[in-house]
């Protein structure tokens, strides 16, 4: 009984404070739209499940502060319920723009319709939602995984143009969008450039170092990697770094006996690059805070938007590793 009463009081206080926030912020938001004061932005982040994600959150928060916007940041802890609640709070607070990094693709229709009815534009960050809800958000800013694959394929085509290439591929989690698109993009670009190549084997390392290492060990037993394999294409850093360990433990020199491409570009990846253990890094950039702010400002100004805005992502060869390493944030 006491507990219930306490909970009631707690909820009441919370509601009051929310209402207070709402009235405060609506005033601010109104002036923000017309004057040069910053916008009020609500950001429902997925969680803090990886170093990539943490870097992403930091980037968005820093960029919002630099641009003079007020950012309401909610960590969804990888729970859709929490994210939905957060978006509803943003609507109640009448923020200018809602940024959502949806933890899953489905189940957003209701809450997005509520935002739409309240006249608050929604921008998706990183991940997408069901195609059926396409009209309910303005644009999605995120990585173009297929483009990342194409960049890797283009480099392979250039590097092995004369010799052709025997390729081993460590793919990400089976069925995940980055795994599918990074695989197909690679082949697309390599085919287009007319590279003579053979993917000897594609196996999933589940995006983990453990998976990458154990699959690579089996590859090493199955193939004469030193002589018969030219290129290892790993869909992310972790798997690539695990594979590098497996190569080294078996007396094969990574980056020399077999060339290596990884996607992601974490600090650890660049360090391996500086040590000469890999040859090419395709960036999957979490630091899109500034770009996100530009998109949000343009959305708030009512500009026409493409449905998908790719994040600006670079590629780095052996000559760039050392210079780029200090810029890495995760």
């Amino acid at each position: 009984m006491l507990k219930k009463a306490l909970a009631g009081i707690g909820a009441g206080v919370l509601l009051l404070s929310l209402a207070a926030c709402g009235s405060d912020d609506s005033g601010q938001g109104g002036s923000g739209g017309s004057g040069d004061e910053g916008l009020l932005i609500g950001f429902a982040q997925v969680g803090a499940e990886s170093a990539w994600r943490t870097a992403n959150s930091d980037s968005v928060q820093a960029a919002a502060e630099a641009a003079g916007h007020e950012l309401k940041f909610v960590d969804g802890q990888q729970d859709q319920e929490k994210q939905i609640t957060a978006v509803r709070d943003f609507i109640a607070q009448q923020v200018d723009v809602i940024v959502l990094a949806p933890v899953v693709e489905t189940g957003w229709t209701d809450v997005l319709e509520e935002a739409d009815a309240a006249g608050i534009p929604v921008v998706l960050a990183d991940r997408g939602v069901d195609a059926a809800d396409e009209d309910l958000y303005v644009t999605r800013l995120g990585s173009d995984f297929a483009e990342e694959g194409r960049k890797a394929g283009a480099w392979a085509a250039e590097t092995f143009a004369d010799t052709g290439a025997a390729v081993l591929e460590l793919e990400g989690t089976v069925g995940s969008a980055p795994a599918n698109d990074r695989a197909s993009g690679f082949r697309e670009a390599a085919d287009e450039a007319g590279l003579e190549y053979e993917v000897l084997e594609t196996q999933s390392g589940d995006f983990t170092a453990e998976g990458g290492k154990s699959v690579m060990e089996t590859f090493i037993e199955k193939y004469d990697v030193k002589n018969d394999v030219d290129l290892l294409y790993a869909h992310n850093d972790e798997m690539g770094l695990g594979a590098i360990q497996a190569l080294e433990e078996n007396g094969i020199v990574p980056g020399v006996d077999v060339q290596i491409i990884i996607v992601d570009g974490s600090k650890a990846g660049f360090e391996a690059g500086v040590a000469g253990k890999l040859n090419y890094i395709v960036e999957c950039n979490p630091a899109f805070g500034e770009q996100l702010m530009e998109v949000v400002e343009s959305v708030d100004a009512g500009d026409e938007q493409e449905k998908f805005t790719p994040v600006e992502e670079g590629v780095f060869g052996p000559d760039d590793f050392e210079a780029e390493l200090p810029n890495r944030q995760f």
Partner: protein
Amino acid sequence: MSALLDRSKSAARAAWAHQYFRRLIWPLGVLLVLIVVNIAVTGFDFIIPSVHDGRLGGAFVNILRRSAPLLLIALGMTLVIATKGIDLSVGAVYAIGAAIACQWIIGRDQMSLGVVFVAVAIAIAVAAAIGAWNGLMVANFGIQPIVATLILMIAGRGIAQLITGGQIPSVSDETPFVELGRGAVLTIPVPIIIAGVVLAALALLTRTTALGMLLESVGGNPEASRLAGIRSKSITVLVYLVCGLCAGLAGLIGAANLGSADANNGGLWIELDAILAVVIGGTALLGGRFFLLGTTIGVAIIGTLEVTIINIGLSSQWQFTAKAIVVLVVALLQSPEFRAWVAKPLRGKRPGGAPSAKAESTGEEALVK
């Protein structure tokens, strides 16, 4: 008089050994089939060990080395299951053990043996404490094992993330810590030695002392055991403690192998593989009789299977399906009813066939119970 006792004792032991090894025939057969398939595809190199850099290698030895963490966890799980329990938190404990060790080492002198020793000791102590906590919840508060350990299965990875600050801490490749996962003593890989020692210790403890019998008794009927004067609560706590300790040790080996601790992915779903290995090895989830050697074979089957899929060139999508098929085959082979059903048409009109199968089945059921 004593000679007579001895004789009946040794006869009982022989009968027991006979029963025990009959249990192992089917999983052993499946493992052999997998090995033969691999040899057919990749040649005898698969099974013949080679020495590389002073460490025993070759496909099969590598499988055993990589399976060491799973074996440790599955052994702990076997004991827990023998008490009619289950421990879902082992994957999370794995991650916590790995996180503690790596985080402790990177903040200090990485080359110092003392630092590594302390890191390992703290990680193992915490893992054992978590296990004991699970045991207390089950034994003293009567919470169902699946619920009690589910709590830490969910919360544990969060704890590991708090320890690592959401990052993946990497230790230096030169620290002695990595030897736990990559090193070798007299060419035998350290993970295999650790797992082997734990297997031998648990086998000795449970088979040469009364502990094994008490365990099976607690699993078979905790109330009756208590009334018979067995302190079933302490035994339950002890068993969960050992299971947590094994999981922490597995996490250390995994972290040492990679030189890093991934709070999110380290040992992810390893609890399911461990349960699978226990079941393949012939231990019933109902509690009671347990088979440490069977579990070991189960682990070898799972490890070999993953390599087999790559060796015969199946895509990763097959991984789960293949695992399911193998488990199905082993489970069916172990079922006396199924064997009798298959054998029936083969035996034709011979009247002795079915009843003898029946007798066998009741015999094995008694064994299980």
